[in-house]
Each structure stands twice: as structure tokens, then as C-alpha cells.
């Protein structure tokens, strides 16, 4: 057995088996994620009252029924960096969702003590925005797998793993020289930048004040508009990590949480030109928009 030495404690026990798994009979996958070419990237099986997550050619992960422990069997030749990448970015968020935690495909940053999140599928610019803010005075809280929780009558962002994954062009454009990096990963050319002096990380809870659904980049200037009601709920559903869509108690909880979150009027659509030259004015637009909320919140609590 071996274990990744991460600085952050997640409520999931994780270990990597040193031996190959015995031959296992798996049921047909009840769900799968496919590549744009239709190849399976991740297959979800039910197994021993828990789950078996198979990344073909890379690794298998066994998740316990309640999502509290994960065991990994790497395929021959899969590197430790790749395993860590798969675990932190795919398996851990799914295991946390099985515990009933609300986990979204989103990055997040801290603006003047307010938690601000950017939601969207891969390629929408979540990590680039987070890195751009982090290198300009606003610490990041996660680059994906956003943990959101309800406490004391408010919604909070919980910091996640202190690293950001970037394609090479974003890495070259945004990240200071000599910033620490995680080992390379086999199936993606993205670089994982570790938090540090050049890319500061916020390790504290922050009240959630903004959720921005990222557009497709067709806007000619930064554009922000509110997203209301059912449309906002359905957008949140699309960006949720959910391990088991057949667990009705969790579905009810998820429904209740998403509708409550939307009722707080924190959901907006954000689009902007995807050029590095535009990033400063995109950041400025978001900062000003978030500060409007902070003033509103201060007045309503007075």
C-alpha cells in the first residue's frame, strides 16, 4: 500500500494497492464518460455495494458504498503523477458527492473575503481565470471539484487541492518562472502548478457570493447577466459531480441544495473574449461586479 502525501485532509481514506487486482466480474457500466471521439474515458460499475471506476488503460478505483474510502489499482506503467491526477480531479469529487457533499465543476477565488466561482465544462477557461486572478492579488481556492457547503444560514466555499492545471499556453502566459509543478501526467499535456508565492492559495472558508456560468467566448467584451430560477438550477445540475444518479436520498438533497443556492441570487452568466490581452479587463469587470454584491450584503445585514 502507498498513500499520496497531500497537505489537505479530505474525509476520504485513499490507498494504492501494490499488487494487481484479482480477476473481477464487473456488471455492465451503469454510466460512462466518453471522449469527443466516443471512446470511454471513465466507466462506472456497481461493485460490492459500492462502486468500481475504471479508467481504461490507466487505473481502476474501488469506492466504498458511502464514498468514505477509495482503493486504487494502477495499470502497468501508469505513473504516480497520473494516479494522483485521476484521483484528485475525478475520483475524489465523485466520492465526496457520494457522501452527500455538493461538488461542482468550478474553479474559485477569493475577492476581498468573498468566494467567487467559475463554472463550466472542460475548456471553458475555469483554470485560466483562477490562475489569472491568483497571479494578480486574488488567491485561488480550487481549480475544479468545487466544494460548496451550507452552514450558519449561508453557503460557503471550502478550499480544495492547492494546485491549478493549465494548458501550456496559459502556463507560459500567466505563471511566474520557477513556480513549483507536479510531475507530468500521461494522458494530458496539462501542467499542474502547485500553489506558492507566485500563485497564492486561500486555505480558509469563504462565503459564496458569485457563481459565474462561463460562456463560449463569442462576446466582444466582458458581459455579465443574471441567470434566474429553473435555468440556473439546470445549469448547476449540468456542472455537478454525481457518482450515483440512482440514489434517491442524495438526489433529493441535491435538488434541495441547488434550489436553495439559486434562490440566493448568486448565479450569473459570464462571457468574454478568450485572449490573454483581455484578461485584465475581465478581472476588473468581475471584481467590480462582486464588490457590488458585498456592499448589498453589508447593507442587508446592518
Amino acid at each position: 500500500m502507498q498513500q499520496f502525501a497531500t497537505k489537505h485532509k479530505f474525509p476520504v481514506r485513499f490507498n494504492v494497492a501494490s499488487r494487481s487486482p484479482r480477476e473481477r466480474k464487473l456488471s455492465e457500466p451503469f454510466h460512462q464518460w466518453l471522449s469527443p471521439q466516443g471512446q470511454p474515458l471513465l466507466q462506472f460499475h456497481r461493485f460490492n455495494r459500492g462502486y468500481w471506476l475504471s479508467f481504461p488503460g490507466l487505473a481502476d478505483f474501488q469506492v466504498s458504498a458511502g464514498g468514505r474510502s477509495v482503493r486504487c489499482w494502477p495499470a502497468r506503467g501508469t505513473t504516480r503523477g497520473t494516479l494522483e491526477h485521476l484521483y484528485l480531479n475525478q475520483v475524489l469529487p465523485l466520492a465526496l458527492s457520494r457522501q452527500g457533499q455538493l461538488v461542482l465543476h468550478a474553479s474559485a477565488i477569493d475577492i476581498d473575503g468573498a468566494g467567487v466561482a467559475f463554472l463550466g465544462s472542460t475548456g471553458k477557461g475555469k483554470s485560466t481565470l483562477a490562475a489569472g486572478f491568483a497571479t494578480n492579488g486574488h488567491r485561488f481556492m480550487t481549480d475544479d471539484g468545487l466544494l460548496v457547503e451550507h452552514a450558519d444560514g449561508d453557503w460557503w466555499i471550502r478550499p480544495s487541492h492547492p494546485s491549478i492545471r493549465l494548458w501550456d499556453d496559459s502556463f507560459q502566459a500567466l505563471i511566474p518562472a520557477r513556480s513549483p509543478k507536479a510531475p507530468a501526467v500521461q494522458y494530458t499535456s496539462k501542467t499542474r502548478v502547485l500553489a506558492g508565492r507566485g500563485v497564492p492559495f486561500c486555505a480558509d472558508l469563504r462565503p459564496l457570493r458569485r457563481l459565474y456560468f462561463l460562456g463560449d467566448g463569442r462576446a466582444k467584451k466582458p458581459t455579465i447577466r443574471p441567470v434566474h430560477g429553473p435555468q440556473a438550477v439546470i445549469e448547476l445540475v449540468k456542472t455537478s459531480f454525481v457518482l450515483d444518479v440512482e440514489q434517491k436520498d442524495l438526489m433529493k438533497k441535491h435538488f434541495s441544495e441547488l434550489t436553495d443556492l439559486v434562490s440566493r441570487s448568486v448565479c450569473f452568466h459570464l462571457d468574454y473574449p478568450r485572449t490573454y490581452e483581455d484578461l485584465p479587463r475581465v478581472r476588473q469587470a468581475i471584481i467590480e461586479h462582486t464588490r457590488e454584491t458585498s456592499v448589498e450584503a453589508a447593507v442587508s445585514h446592518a
Partner: protein
Amino acid sequence: MPDKKRLVRVHPSALHREVQGEIVLLHLDSGEYFGLNDVGSRIWQLIVDTGNLDEVEATILREFDVDPDVLSRDLQAVVDQLVEKNLIELV
């Protein structure tokens, strides 16, 4: 006595909640989410409150400036969709 076919009820697997004035629905068996616009949301509320499509129709007619024939046709179309998605069922 109302016509039996005009009585409906929310499907036991359908969850609903009003969010910012509009209704969001989740069907627990399929895992599908649905959103209703403002008129659809009002129809839903009346279905929940009365379970009687005659009463729904009469109330909408009082509240909205709409031709009775158009309303009758549109209401039936909404009800057909809700039944098809197993969000309500005929009693």
C-alpha cells in the same frame, strides 16, 4: 361532480420547488430536471392546490387576458407534456 378525466395529481416521484417565482421539477426515477415558465408555474401551483383541471382553467381565465379556446388548447398541451414526463398523473 367534475368529469373524472379532469382530475390530476402530482406524480409521487416528482419533486417540485418554486425558485425565484418559477417552478423547478425533478423526477426521481429518471433523474431529469424540468423548468416551467411563469404561466406554466401558475398552472402547476393550481394543479397542486386543486387537482382539478376545470378549476385550473377557470382561475387562469380570471387571472390572464386570454381567449378561452386558446387557453383550453394550451392548457391541454401543458397537461399532456406533464403526463408524458410522468410529472403528474390522471386520477
